[in-house]
């Protein structure tokens, strides 16, 4: 496939785009299932009694878990739009490049999080197998008290 410039006007216009917020509810059962799935027996993620006596006072989320979305649309809708634009530009193949979390406060069972996402940047680079594009999505998770709990930066690679 001949690849033209990746950052077309349409793609460039997506930089800075924001999403509708996602609402996530953090429930004990969902945390336990997550911990079960990775085989993590840490009592802070599953034992209500022990968690109550810990510094957190309640079961907390393992890193990278934010509960289960009440409605899933915001962030995924946003990255889907970028993907569509990149596919049109000739970069249809998707890879998850990785993620970075900056944690400010623990996330407890019973919390409701609101997640705001933004396309922070889209860049291109010449790779071994041709040109690759990197889309950085920044997501900010805020809890029901209005406190910032986590900032996440995800990298989507399209080539």
């Amino acid at each position, binding site marked *: 496939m001949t690849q033209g410039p990746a950052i077309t006007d349409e793609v460039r216009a997506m930089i800075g785009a924001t999403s509708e917020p996602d609402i996530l509810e953090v429930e004990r059962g*969902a945390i336990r*299932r*997550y911990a*079960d*799935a*990775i*085989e*993590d*027996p*840490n*009592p*802070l993620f599953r034992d209500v009694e022990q968690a109550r006596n*810990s*510094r957190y006072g309640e079961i907390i989320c*393992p*890193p*990278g*878990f934010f509960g*289960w*979305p009440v409605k*899933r649309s915001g962030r995924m809708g946003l990255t889907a739009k970028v993907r569509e634009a990149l596919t049109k530009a000739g970069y249809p193949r998707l*890879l*998850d*490049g*990785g*993620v*970075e*979390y*900056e*944690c400010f406060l*623990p996330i407890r069972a019973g919390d409701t999080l609101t997640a705001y996402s933004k396309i922070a940047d889209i860049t291109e680079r010449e790779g071994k197998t041709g040109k690759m594009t990197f889309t950085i999505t920044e997501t900010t998770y805020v809890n029901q008290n209005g406190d910032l709990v986590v900032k996440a*930066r995800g*990298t989507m690679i399209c080539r």
Partner: protein
Amino acid sequence: MPLIERQGKVEKQLYFEDVEVGSEVTPLAKVATTQMLVRWAGASGDFNPLHYDATFATSQGVGSPIVHGALKRAWLGQLMTNWIGEQGFLKKFSCQYRGMDYPRKMKTMTEPEEGETWWCKGTVTKKYVDGDQHIVECDIWVENGKGEKTTPGNATVILPSRA
């Protein structure tokens, strides 16, 4: 490897004074299985058939279902939360998905077939005090059975101090 060994455990509380640059993060062994991938799909909500449907995975050119990058990320999360204990705080955490991994098949409902074991590892690269926070930075990674670091990353943690 029995389940209990694969799960690892939370260490006794680690303090800032216990670590030096070059110290090893207590390694954590993991066995990815076809079953774990389906559990992960259910727990994470990532239902991409690339991770369980052999026909689909073949059509995508990866040969057979591959381990979710985010599952390996979650293992690295456990590596750190086990190590820093209840009094530690994971402040920053990142990883890149560099290579593909393939899960073991299951022999029975509970036992995986013989095969590859993954190791989550880390080393301390920096320690310093910032205000009243005792901060330790680490290189972390997931290493597959061939010794390849398929998921490298970094972590910054705050540890309690004995001082």
